């Protein structure tokens, strides 16, 4: 066991450390050309802030990829969802498992990471108003990510990697799968480097004076966690890749799972950081909200960085090999301190919204501010639904299922699937959708297409996801397993049927799935329509 870990660390951290060292050397010798070329900037009519024009095409390219992968993941979601419902049972078994693998990768990796890269460039160039340094490197990052993701998609769709998103060994994909993932990750690493270099240059050139704005601070926390996450990813993907080529024997499954979730869970914390940054920024853009206490909000972000990266064991609570004391400590002090951070934001974000709306004069009674909030502004409504979905549906259930004893009755059942659709879909994806409604006008100076469809889009997507996520958790309590083609066990040696109430649950799920898929599809139409829109923001 020890031998594996040591060689894995050397193989993975060695090249990474080399890249890191070389980039430090490069940063030392890097002489920025003079920057203050005013023709590269314009003033945004929405925010009144400087926007770096050349970064626009890069943001646009990354957004294109994000939306295309969202569409691909959505198609897969349709196939997966309506195969799970025994009444429809759409796809045959192999295709179902393939679609499920593709769905996980397209959504959780490609849509989210592409969008996050666009969001990183957006905050640094359109909110801070810095010039995007190392723009060529940013395009190289784009190319690497594009190449990597296409290789992964082709490998999965041709049936060479039916191993699910988690790719637990001894299940083995074709080596090209790991190639693709690694190249994509290197691209993401370069994008993070561009973000930091841009920020360093902006400090040096006095574009940033004083503390970072809270939204950008949150983004930076996310990027910091990204670096740690990518290192974890390299530690297990690199040896697994060698193993897939036959150059490496004996992958230890427990070590793999431990490091996989150090990567997998931290990557969710990147999403959380950036999602909360979106909540703050959308609040300011739509209703002029102001963070309550900068100290508190920033401390919460630091708690994320410090604690979540090592809290991978709540995925392994019913696994052998790790002792209960270790599991309890890892889940308790590491995860729950990050939970505390989420609890802080759970007060700070809605409270800032309420104060901003009360300042507008909606002060009658307890809830006038809520009644008169701009619910027809898609960015605002999406952001509010995202707060409800993440906190009340995804977050709180995650914390309870992550208790050792409760995990026995929820591990790998649909409770988990419901939980993470609450966090990642109702939470992160919806927050990113809400941010899109401001990102495209601010960074690209394009108006949002189909404005009347945009008004209802969050109201289809958000409640749809929340409905099916809650129902999945409910019927998951009766033991419905995740990632399963046939819960009627028609081909199995022994037959069993679940509590009949689950068939009612499936009908409610189907309503939620339909709403979410229509909402997601409308978002793709609106978003791509806006990217193609000729109409400029006044």
């Amino acid at each position, binding site marked *: 066991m020890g031998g594996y870990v040591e060689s894995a660390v050397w193989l993975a951290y060695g090249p990474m450390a080399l890249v890191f060292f070389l980039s430090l050397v490069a940063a030392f010798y890097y002489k920025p050309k003079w920057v203050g070329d005013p023709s590269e900037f314009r003033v945004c009519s929405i925010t009144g802030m400087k926007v770096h024009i050349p970064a626009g095409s890069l943001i646009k390219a990354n957004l294109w990829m994000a939306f295309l992968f969202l569409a691909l993941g959505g198609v897969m979601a349709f196939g997966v969802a309506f195969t799970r419902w025994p009444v429809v049972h759409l796809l045959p078994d192999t295709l179902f498992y393939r679609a499920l693998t593709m769905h996980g990768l397209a959504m959780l990796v490609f849509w989210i990471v592409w969008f996050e890269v666009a969001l990183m460039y957006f905050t640094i160039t359109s909110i801070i108003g810095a010039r995007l340094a190392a723009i060529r490197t940013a395009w190289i990052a784009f190319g690497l990510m594009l190449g990597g993701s296409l290789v992964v998609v082709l490998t999965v769709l041709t049936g060479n990697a039916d191993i699910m998103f988690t790719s637990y060994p001894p299940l083995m994909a074709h080596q090209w799968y790991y190639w693709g993932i690694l190249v994509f990750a290197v691209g993401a690493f370069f994008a993070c480097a561009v973000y930091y270099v841009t920020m360093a240059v902006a400090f040096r050139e006095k574009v940033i004076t004083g*503390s970072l704005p809270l939204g950008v601070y949150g983004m930076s926390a996310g990027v910091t966690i990204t670096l740690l996450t990518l290192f974890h990813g390299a530690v297990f993907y690199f040896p697994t890749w060698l193993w897939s080529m036959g150059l490496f024997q004996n992958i230890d499954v427990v070590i793999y799972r431990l490091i996989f979730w150090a990567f997998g869970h931290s990557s969710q914390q990147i999403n959380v950081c950036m999602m909360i940054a979106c909540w703050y920024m959308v609040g300011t853009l739509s209703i002029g909200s102001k963070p309550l206490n900068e100290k508190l909000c920033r401390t919460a972000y630091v708690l994320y960085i410090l604690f979540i990266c090592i809290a991978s064991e709540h995925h392994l609570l019913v696994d*052998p090999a790790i002792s209960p004391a270790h599991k309890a400590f890892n889940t308790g002090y590491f995860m729950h301190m990050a939970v505390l951070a989420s*609890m802080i934001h759970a007060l700070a974000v809605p409270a800032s919204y309420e104060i901003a709306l009360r300042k507008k004069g909606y002060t009658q009674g307890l809830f006038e501010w809520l009644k008169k909030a701009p619910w027809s502004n898609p960015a605002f409504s999406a952001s509010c639904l995202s707060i409800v979905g993440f906190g009340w549906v995804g977050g709180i259930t995650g*914390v309870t299922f992550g208790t050792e*004893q409760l995990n*026995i009755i929820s591990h790998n059942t649909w409770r988990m699937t419901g939980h993470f659709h609450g966090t990642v879909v109702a939470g992160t994806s919806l927050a990113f959708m809400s941010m899109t409604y401001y990102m495209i006008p601010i960074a690209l100076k394009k108006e949002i297409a189909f404005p009347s469809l945009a008004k209802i889009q969050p109201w289809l997507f958000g409640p749809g996801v929340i409905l099916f996520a809650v129902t999945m958790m409910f019927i998951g309590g009766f033991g419905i397993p995740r990632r399963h083609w046939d819960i009627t066990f028609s081909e199995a040696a022994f037959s069993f049927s679940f509590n009949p109430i689950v068939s009612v649950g499936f009908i409610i799920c189907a309503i939620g799935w339909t709403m979410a898929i229509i909402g997601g599809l409308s978002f793709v139409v609106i978003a791509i329509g806006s990217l193609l829109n000729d109409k400029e923001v006044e």
Partner: protein
Amino acid sequence: MSLYTPEKHWWKPMDREEMIWVTIAFIWCQLITFIMPFSHAYGKHNPPAVTSKASTAEYGAKVDKFIAENKTGEEAGVAVVEVKPEVKEIYIVGRSYQWEPVLKLQQGKEYILHLSSGDYEHGMSIQPMNMNIMALPGYDYHLRITPDQAGEYFIICNEFCGAGHHMMTGKIYVS
């Protein structure tokens, strides 16, 4: 405002409401942390704590020996095993795509159920009680269990293990 540089000195004390909220949240986090070791000391449904290493070949040989010694019949082509009253150690293995053997257990008796996998990662999910424990190749997980209700239990696999994952089932009888 979250888009603009904050004023120079933003390190300010919290308001009373914020203080109350953070205190409540902190206490809640401590409670859910505390509940885990507390349940290990006083609860009756904890994740098992004992593991030993056993390669898939070693473990498979143990299970085959166990089946050969205690086999009483077959059901749907799978060996049915009933141990003598004095035997405490029983075995189950997840192989693509079957849980073996079918176990016949006595109500109220304490067993050490050894759980592992013969090939890929499997998830042992006992229904309808909904108890889920992982079976990982290379590790023998010692589950201390006392079946307290008579009846027929059904095992499914809830960790994706390959193309026939949905066909993987098993059975436990308690009488």
